[in-house]
């Protein structure tokens, strides 16, 4: 067991101190209504859980030994073809960048999810914050106060939603399992004086527990109760009400949990939420890979395309990074169950929005599936350094962690070619 040099509580104290020193509350309200590049940046992550196949998404190789039955379609970017499960995205590819040569060393779901959510390989003694947590931490560091709803929201998460890691549990994502109906328990059971007496009573109980246990503060229990109480009465909750959108808009995103999650993500970003993660599970297609991907394509394609359309139309595109990625890709070889296995070398991602070039393709995988490494390999950490840079995060600055070891938010180098 490691001996921490400084406790998490020290760290929290220091970081909240930093936040206070540059507190500029007057700017906050304007911030949410600001449009264009001046608006504070948000991140939307479309998380393809289980490891999506590059060959059935953004990097098809039809007609080859490894291609399987998947067909390719042309897109509105000259020379770029994608899998035919994405007809609507084919008309939006001129807005985003495709990376076809991501490489990682993690082939186990949990470890790879860690790597692809944080940009770091799992390490003993220290848990790195996810990209989403880093963006939310920037919100606090900038002294923002405008949000009464959580800064990080994760729709339909699997068992590994975005986590705060060494930034603390208060940067864990707020999980909503079903964007259509799962936001409840927001109304107090009793009203008026009774509710306020309950809250008063609670502070009496809390006080006697914490009196002899200074460490109780680190559980963040009281803070979480306070946030929950604030949220219960906030106007911003309206952002969750996707049924207020015209039917045509809701239909455009598709009638799936994932689609409605993407619509909610757009509404949340609009009110100033800094990070939204929308998860689609089921990409771990060791068996029946092709059907599995066709079904998932039906959900991702309309949602992703509508999201890009809406963000552009509302002038939020230049202040939002959209990242569509999973923990790894899938093997070029097709196994006896018509499945593909884990493949962490040469997999694909799509990224676009704030600060990114549009209509760009990087990297190339071997159409014969023989060469393990792709051409122009791109490290996850470099992609994430680029994302963080475009989100306005000073990722290279070292921050003190609870184990007393200074760490950067990313050890990568931004990829110039991706920058607008």
């Amino acid at each position, binding site marked *: 067991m490691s001996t*921490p040099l400084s406790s998490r509580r020290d760290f929290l104290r220091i970081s909240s101190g930093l936040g206070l020193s540059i507190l500029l509350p007057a700017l906050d309200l304007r911030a949410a209504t600001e449009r264009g590049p001046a608006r504070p940046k948000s991140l939307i992550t479309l998380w393809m859980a289980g490891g999506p196949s590059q060959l059935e998404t953004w990097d098809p190789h039809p007609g080859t030994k490894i291609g399987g039955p998947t067909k390719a379609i042309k897109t509105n970017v000259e020379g770029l073809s994608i899998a035919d499960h994405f007809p609507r995205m084919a008309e939006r590819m001129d807005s985003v960048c495709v990376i076809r040569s991501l490489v990682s060393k993690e082939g*186990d779901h949990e470890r790879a999810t860690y790597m692809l959510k944080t940009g770091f390989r799992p390490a003993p003694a220290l848990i790195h914050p996810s990209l989403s947590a880093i963006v939310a931490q920037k919100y606090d560091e900038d002294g923002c106060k405008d949000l009464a709803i959580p800064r990080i929201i994760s729709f339909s998460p699997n068992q590994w939603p975005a986590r705060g890691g060494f930034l603390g*549990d208060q940067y864990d994502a707020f*999980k909503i399992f079903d964007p259509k109906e799962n936001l409840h328990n927001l109304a107090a059971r009793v009203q008026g004086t009774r509710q306020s007496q309950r809250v008063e009573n609670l502070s*009496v109980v809390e006080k006697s527990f914490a009196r002899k246990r200074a460490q109780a503060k680190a*559980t963040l229990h009281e803070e979480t109760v306070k946030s929950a109480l604030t949220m219960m009465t906030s106007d911003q909750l309206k952002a969750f009400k996707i049924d207020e959108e015209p039917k045509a808009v809701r239909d455009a995103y598709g009638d799936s949990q994932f689609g409605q999650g993407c619509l909610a993500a757009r509404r949340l970003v609009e009110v100033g939420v800094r990070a939204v993660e929308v998860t689609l599970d089921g990409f771990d297609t060791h068996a029946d890979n092709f059907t599995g991907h066709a079904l998932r394509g039906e959900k991702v394609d309309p949602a992703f395309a509508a999201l890009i359309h809406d963000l552009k139309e509302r002038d939020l595109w230049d202040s939002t990074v959209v990242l569509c990625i999973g923990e790894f890709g899938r093997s070029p*070889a097709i196994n006896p169950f018509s499945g593909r296995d884990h493949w962490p070398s040469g997999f694909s991602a799509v990224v676009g929005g704030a600060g990114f070039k549009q209509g760009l393709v990087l990297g190339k995988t071997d159409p014969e599936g023989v060469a393990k490494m792709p051409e122009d390999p791109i490290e996850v950490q470099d992609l994430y350094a680029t994302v963080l840079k475009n989100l306005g995060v000073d990722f290279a600055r070292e921050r003190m962690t609870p184990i007393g070891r200074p760490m950067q938010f990313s050890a990568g180098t931004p990829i110039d070619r991706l920058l607008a």
Partner: protein
Amino acid sequence: MTRLRKSPSTFTLLLPILAVAGFAAVVFAAARSPVGVSGREVGAEISNLKPTVLVVDRTLAKEWKDVGATPASAATDLQVFRRLSLALFGMIPSLEEIRSFEADTRPDRLDHWTRRMLADPRFNDYFAERLARMVVGTEGGQFIIYRRDRFVEWLSNQLKDGVPWDHTVRSMLTQQGLSTDRPAVNFVAAAINEGDIDENKLAGRTARAFLGQRMDCAQCHDHPFAVWKQEQFEGLASFFGQTKQTITGVEDMPVQNGVQQEYKVQDRKTLKDRVVEPRVPFHPEWMPQEGSRREKLAAWITHPENRRFERAIANRVWGFVFGKPYLEPVDDLEDPKDGETDMLDVLGTEFREKGYDLRRLVQTIVSSKAFRTSSEPPAGADEKATHLSECHWAVFPLIRLRPEQVIGSMLQSSSVQTVDYNSNLLFRLIRITRRSDFVKEYGDFGDDELQLHGGTIPQRLLMMNGQLAAEVFEAGFFNPTSRLSVMNSSDEKCVENAYLVCLTRRPTAEESTHFSGRLKDLKGGERRKAVEDMMWSLVNSTEFSWNH
């Protein structure tokens, strides 16, 4: 990685059970002796366990001295009693149990009550579920072929019968037959996908659950820190290569339809199949010459010289009772170093030498100073010193309760009497609610049950405003709210009972004054509302949701 289907609301599911429970409570209360469940005790004799606990305490003392941690004073018996109930039953003690415990004046009553709780069917059921999560996870798998419920029931019986752990593990690894008829076979059956045995999944689970080491990553590449190589993982998987799913269940078939069965993997470079022979990653001499592939593997895993085997379970059980393992991550321990021994070796050696007795292992850990120390840091300790002490078990760490513990505790606090019953009602309930909105919304930890997370806003919303909490605390016919408000004569007594029911302690003078003031002069419905409000505040406190 599939998520659970939407199920009817928790309360709809709970309602009939609660009604039955209410009725049963009345019947049992009438029929039962005032001492409570039963005075039966199992596990090691107290005098016999003492030397073992002494060695553990000495190891702790040395650790504290080495790192410069000042231990907290001893926790009160009632605090330890609450922890024991949470650790062994997954719920807080009832008022009835508290009264009966307090009436016991023996100086070693905690030792006796530990033995008594180990004899309670709730222990077997609760630990069986936690062991099941460790070995097969939470997934449902293929129905008929895989019966998780039978598996948990079997584990519960193994615990009840005191079957040695090495024996239980060998059964899981080697059992043949049908999932219903031979429940141990479900370990293998859980890894059947479309009629085929997933050897990789089994190899990964075997290493994680029984050796505390994660070899799965070696499935695709060499392990980043440890010595595991891809070929070693394949060698391990090959032990399951002759195991088949047939009409008569899981069978070992070295020859099937006249063909010698081999474990083959596709070579990533040549894309051709190659045969992989079964091979263990270290100490092949522990493997017997005779037996099926799985029998050989089982003998190797449970070989008395295999330190990883005993260390892994010692660390798990430590994690089960504290909510946090001794070493992390629980399924990716560093290799034990030659010539060095730590707490896990101390516990592991004792465990092996005393016949791989899980109950004794539990008993040892909960009798140690680590489990019985206070969560209040020594006076004058600053944050840094407290954190250090928490890390080294010199101060009892604050650990968030598991969703089942919260739901179990809520149900318990809704009844003055013990929610147990011969039929293990609570655990049928947990099995239902595991799929229910409550646990889902509260956030089931799934297989990662020993990872530490802070509480979340949705959890607080659920506890403050949710349906289940409301139904439990808004006065119903059998919950304590009505009892407390009606039955107790003085305001002070009513407050005290509410504290005992929810927090297993008495209120401080300040708390007593505050809440008595809230109840003063109130009658009937108004009084009941004030009691409800008090209960609400107690269950929404840090103290209720965190073990301490």
